[in-house]
């Protein structure tokens, strides 16, 4: 009997390790949208509105970058992240950037390998207590139960503050802002601590904001900044100069209302012309179109417009500009020149 021999061919699959991706900007263009990590919901900074559209100060930052890179401020996929998941989401490439009231610290910048693209909100940690508690200073909080979002710098500041003032407290660690407010509302904790801007935003969502006070002590410096992965400097530059463009636009009086007009008819201020791309090659240096800043400002306005629309004194959150005013108005916002 004729015997055929079949030899099965074993194909060893090529086990190439995941290739290091091309630049983040190319990935974003290829995908057609920006993946932006935001908080799980903080009124004024990042929260979906009644129609399910994300709105807020941090959300505007995401939209501005999308406008600069893709020319479309709506081409953003918002990825809600908690204090615990945000860094893993960014490091693993799940999001292209984080705009999530994240404090710029040495160890995050250096040890966690992230790149902070400039402060977009100068904040500090504060305490909120019910008025009925009769507390007027954070130093009166000896023995109090304090609700805190876990995985944040506020957790460390809180420990330092109580230890250095030699008073005791009971921490109640909580995963998200919403759960913390629920616990605080039920009286399961005497005080809630987070960044002062977050406290103001949360207080505005209460039924009776007047029943709660934010204590005068600010116990830390919290420069909140958008951040990207370490190592892709071109992408870091895009995010950084998008923020700078918004700040510079406010300084130069370029608003969402007049930007189209200013770009169409170049005036005699050379810095405005360079910003809006009617003079020089700044856009091409970033690998963007020459009118990238026009799109940014047309989409969400300049820094001041975004601030006033989302968290400013006319909104329920009612934050004053304070440290976040332009340097020309006594604040800390100071963009390097567009040159």
């Amino acid at each position, binding site marked *: 009997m004729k015997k055929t*021999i*079949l030899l*099965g061919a*074993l194909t*060893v699959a090529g*086990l190439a*390790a*995941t290739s*290091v991706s091309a630049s983040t900007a190319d990935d974003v263009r290829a995908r057609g949208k920006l993946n932006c990590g935001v908080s799980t919901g903080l009124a004024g900074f990042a929260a979906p509105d009644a129609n399910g559209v994300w709105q807020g100060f941090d959300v505007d930052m995401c939209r501005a970058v999308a406008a600069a890179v893709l020319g479309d401020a709506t081409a953003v996929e918002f990825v809600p992240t908690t*204090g*615990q998941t945000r*860094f*893993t989401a960014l*490091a693993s490439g799940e999001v292209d950037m984080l705009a999530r009231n994240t404090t710029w610290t040495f*160890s*995050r910048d250096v*040890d*966690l*390998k992230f790149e902070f693209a400039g402060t977009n909100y100068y904040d500090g940690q504060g305490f909120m207590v019910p008025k009925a*508690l009769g507390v007027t200073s954070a130093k009166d*909080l*000896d*023995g*109090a*139960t304090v609700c805190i979002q*876990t*995985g944040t710098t506020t*957790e*460390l500041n*809180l*420990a*330092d503050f*109580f*230890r250095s003032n030699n008073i005791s*407290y*009971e*921490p*109640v*660690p*909580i*995963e998200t802002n919403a759960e913390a407010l629920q*616990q605080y509302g*039920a*009286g*399961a*904790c*005497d005080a809630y601590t987070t960044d002062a801007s977050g406290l103001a935003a949360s207080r505005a969502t209460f039924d009776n904001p007047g029943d709660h006070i934010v204590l005068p002590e600010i116990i830390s410096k919290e420069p909140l900044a958008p951040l990207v992965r*370490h*190592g892709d400097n071109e992408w870091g530059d895009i995010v950084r100069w998008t923020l700078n463009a918004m700040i510079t636009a406010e300084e130069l009086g370029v608003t969402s209302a007049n930007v189209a007009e200013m770009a169409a008819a170049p005036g005699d201020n050379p810095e405005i012309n360079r910003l809006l791309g009617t003079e020089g090659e700044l856009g091409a240096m970033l690998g963007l179109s020459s009118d990238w800043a026009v799109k940014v400002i047309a989409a969400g306005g300049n820094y001041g417009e975004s601030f006033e629309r989302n968290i400013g004194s006319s909104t329920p959150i009612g934050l004053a500009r304070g440290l976040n005013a332009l340097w020309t108005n006594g604040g800390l916002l100071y963009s390097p020149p567009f040159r």
Partner: protein
Amino acid sequence: MTISDNPPKDSFRLSQLLYDTRYRSMTIQVIAFILLMLSLSWLVSNTVQNLQALGKDFNFGFLSQPAGYDINQRIIDYDSQSSHGRAAIVGMLNTILVAFLGCAVATVIGVLVGVLRLSKNWVVSRLMAVYVEALRNVPLLLWIVVIFALMTEATPQPRDFREGGSASMLFGDTVAITNRGVFIPKPIWHDGSLILAAVFVLSLVGIWAFRRYARKRQEQTGDILPVLWISLGLFFVPTILFYFLLGRPVTLEYPELGGFNFQGGLQVRNSLIALWFALSIYTGAFIAEIVRAGILAVSKGQTEAAFALGLRPNRTMNLVILPQAMRVIIPPLISQYLNLTKNSSLAIAVGYMDVRATLGGITINQTGRELEGMLLLGLFYLTASLAISSVMNVYNNRMKLKER
């Protein structure tokens, strides 16, 4: 018949690896082994490459760095200046605590419900069926959150306990149930309490020895000694006697309202209560089914034989049915204990600081050591599970049918 003096030569051809059943299984195993090793080495090299691409190294030095955060429930001394390693140990102890409490209560609930579900009383057995089906078919996380929400929303705040407030303490001002936890009296150990503890342990040994003696005597002579009363006496009398003889070496510290919270006493936090209770009733429902299956596995002839000998139903259950049912019950019970231990990692949902929340949560977040932290976390759960199952296997070996 002739005997062949030169048997067919055993020649080996390559095709035999595939077509000869003697070799085929070996071939498949070798190929599977190679593939497994390749995928493992790919996983490792991929990890190494990606760590390099991120510019991260792999070391456990962070465990000796100061943690910087506080933990509310700590069984050993800990403050924010202690190391990340110590924070991890605090978390591990909290995990072990809730797992131990949960296993104990789940077993009690499971045995009770399992037995009652077989009751001849229609209402009782239906009620137990409803309990089992409702509990085990709703995700555990929901039960944890529901119980936690009830504990925070339905209980009074500490300030309601002030003069003229709406709430008051229970049991002669010794226990306070608040929305931050239950405050109970805490024992304070003074000089001589060690002797008292020794007396208590000795009386436990005494009870064990007496019961052994009583059983032997019953087997030999048929006399039944009043075991229960003598055991109870041994349990209480020497300890109470020495308590007064030594001049009350153990006192209780009662919780008192002071400042924002109750001070003194022992605070059983709501997070612990919610997690403990939810784990107990959830796992208890599964254990109830295991117990029921175990009892049903014992043939009805055993019950009938016991009744024929004149044993009452109660004794039939305790002396005839349950010991035999245990052999069926214990192996799946072990796996329920393991499940409960691993499920305790849902603790972060209610802010209970277990090892997942300290080492696997805050430490990882503050130090950026995801890989190291997760490996340690996995190692801890693996060790804990193996320890539980080895202890339970010793028990299983003692209970199982001895085959000679």
